[in-house]
């Protein structure tokens, strides 16, 4: 059995314009990095929201490590899913510092474990010394790294990334893409990356799925 499974997932918004996602199935092994490629409006971000539990599918089921996240009878709330997500605009809490952002998801650990994990994450993304800064005092690339550290800190079972490069300048993008690839390999984490840029997906991912409209 695969580590992560989506089976016949279907979803449509209330507005009645027909399903955005229809009978979508996907299997992934642990540590695999899968890219989902498609033009805007094809439902790729919706797919991530379904996995994260921010939307409820009309049909189908999602399993992770044998545990059901959602099926027609059950629905695990996003806070209990163990899914990490990096949002398109990173959504770093503007009222918290870099440290506080990363510590945010570590509330279940003891104080010592928290401090230790914080140190690990800051060094993983090479942001030591930036802990006391606020998000608006960082560059786009730095913000992305903090978002990455924040999502990874609670050790999620799977990491979801929604267009991680869309907010970056073109010349920065190439370098950051390489960095991210290294980070992901280092962390050895199962990842789904959604993008409209073929090159992004080809650089980073083990496998690419194309979504048609």
């Amino acid at each position: 059995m695969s580590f992560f499974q989506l089976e016949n997932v279907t979803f449509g918004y209330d507005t009645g314009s027909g399903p955005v996602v229809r009978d979508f199935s996907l299997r992934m092994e642990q540590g695999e990095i899968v890219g989902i490629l498609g033009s805007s409006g094809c439902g790729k971000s919706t797919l991530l929201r379904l996995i994260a539990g921010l939307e409820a599918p009309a049909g189908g089921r999602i399993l992770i490590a044998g545990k059901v996240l959602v099926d027609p009878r059950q629905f695990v709330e996003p806070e209990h899913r163990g899914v990490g997500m990096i949002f398109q605009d990173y959504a770093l809490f503007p009222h918290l510092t870099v440290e506080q952002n990363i510590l945010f998801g570590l509330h279940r650990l003891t104080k010592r474990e928290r401090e230790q994990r914080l140190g690990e994450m800051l060094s993983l993304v090479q942001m030591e010394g930036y802990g006391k800064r606020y998000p608006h005092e960082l560059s786009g690339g730095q913000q992305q790294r903090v978002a990455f550290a924040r999502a990874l800190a609670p050790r999620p079972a799977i990491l979801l990334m929604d267009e991680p490069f869309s907010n970056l300048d073109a010349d920065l993008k190439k370098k950051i893409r390489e960095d991210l690839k290294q980070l992901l390999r280092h962390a050895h984490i199962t990842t789904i990356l959604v993008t409209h840029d073929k090159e992004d997906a080809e650089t980073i991912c083990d496998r690419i799925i194309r979504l048609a409209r």
Partner: protein
Amino acid sequence: MTGAALRRSLKRKWNGWVALSVTGAVLALLPSLYILLGLFARTTENWQHIQEYMLLDYALQSLLLVLGTVSCTIVVGVSLAWLVAAYDFPLRRFFSFAFVLPLAIPPYIAAYTYGNMLSYTGSIQTFLRNEWGLAPDQRYFDIMSMKGAIFIFTLFLFPYVYLIAKTFMEKQSAAFIENALLLGKNSLHIFWRIVLPLSQAAIAGGASLVAFEVLNDFGVTKHFGIQSFTAAIFKTWFGMYDVDSAIRLAAWLMSLIIGIFVVERLVRRRKKFSSPTNRMTPLRRRKLKGLSKYAVLCFCVAVAALSFFIPVAQLAVWATWTYKEVLNDVFVQLLTNTLLISCISITLLMILAVTVANVIRYSRTSVFSLVMTRLISMGYSIPGAVLSIGVLAVVISLDKELAPLYAWLGFAEGKLVISMSLFMLIFAYIIRFLAVGYNAVEAGFEKTGNRYAEASRLLGMGMTRTFFKVDLPLIKGAVITGFILVFMEIVKELPLTLLLRPYNFETLATKAYQYASDEQIHQASIPSLLIIGVGIVSVYFYHWLGERQAK
């Protein structure tokens, strides 16, 4: 949806937040429901009398008042909005703010200020007699009439139209106007053929607010002795002691208001013009020169003076005459009462507003959300007099239900506990102004978006912890804004306070009103000035927020 899926969805969505929201909305609906049921109740003997001798007259008077005020406010509000939005003239920025200030003065305070100023012994006639030896015809000074009421309402309610129209003209119409200019049209033509039709929906929005305010009024019509619909309700209630008939009248008034609401919607339905591009170039103002510059300046000075500076100056003069007599222990008690009741009500109101907004933000377009927002906003469009009857009826019947409990607790038989307490007034304030607080909070949530909350959920925080750790710090400003706006509304609210307060409980507004109706108008000046002061702070806050959003 299958049964299992429905159960899953219910389980997923039902929590403390939703439960509290639904309870709040149902409670807010209760008084209105009670009143509308009055339409189906059996009529009393009085009803025939009311129908024959009062109903038509009073309805016509109210209609005249509303139509007169609405047309005058549209003329004044739209022309000022256009002048401020499209032209540059001396003191333009000052006027842009000064025209909002009348909102700080409740019309009932304006009514008795002008009423006294223009009376035979008032400052204007005294001045004319003593300084210039003139004894003009009293008819020129007869403000205690329908015309006078329209005059007062227009001066102090036109900012609603002005504000909405100005915002629209500044933001939306630039491209169209510039095109029209390039096509060689002159300003007047542009105003009539382009700006006015485009602003139609915005103007209708402002005008309907004015109509609601006029129908809600109690102080002005009472002081001027105009037989409005609200007056009829009071006459039946307190003159004939016929609560059933009063409820029936209130129900008719409410139907009228629902009617206005529908008409406004119909006018606006297909007229929501907005430029197809997101790029909004602000309107370039044209400099006025020569005669037109001075004409515009005179007009603006006249409106600003009449609608704010003259009445405030007059009140200030009266305050210097009476402060020794008015400022005493009783006055301190008055202040404490006002602050106490406002703070309790606003705290409860904002908790409910924030809860509902936090529930609705996740599914804005769903039927549930639409119904909730409608229910929440309803209280604001119901006139205070109508709402107070509804609340009173609900609370009295609640007291009756609880009678066995009271007996068990050892109270005397037939004692009304809740209806004699502050609870009733607080309940009414919350229903009436929930929309004000809710809109402020909602704007805050809309600006922040859902992504921070979603990020927090994915980092393992539940809805409640997310709210306190992420949402609340981010919408703090919006909550404070809501607090201040509701505070202004409660401090100046007259009919609700007057009708639902416990015996001998006086606030600034009721005391000012009491002085004025006891012909002690000079004494009313100090509480009035305080109310206006709170109003100015809120208006300034509002203006500042608007300017900041515009940037």
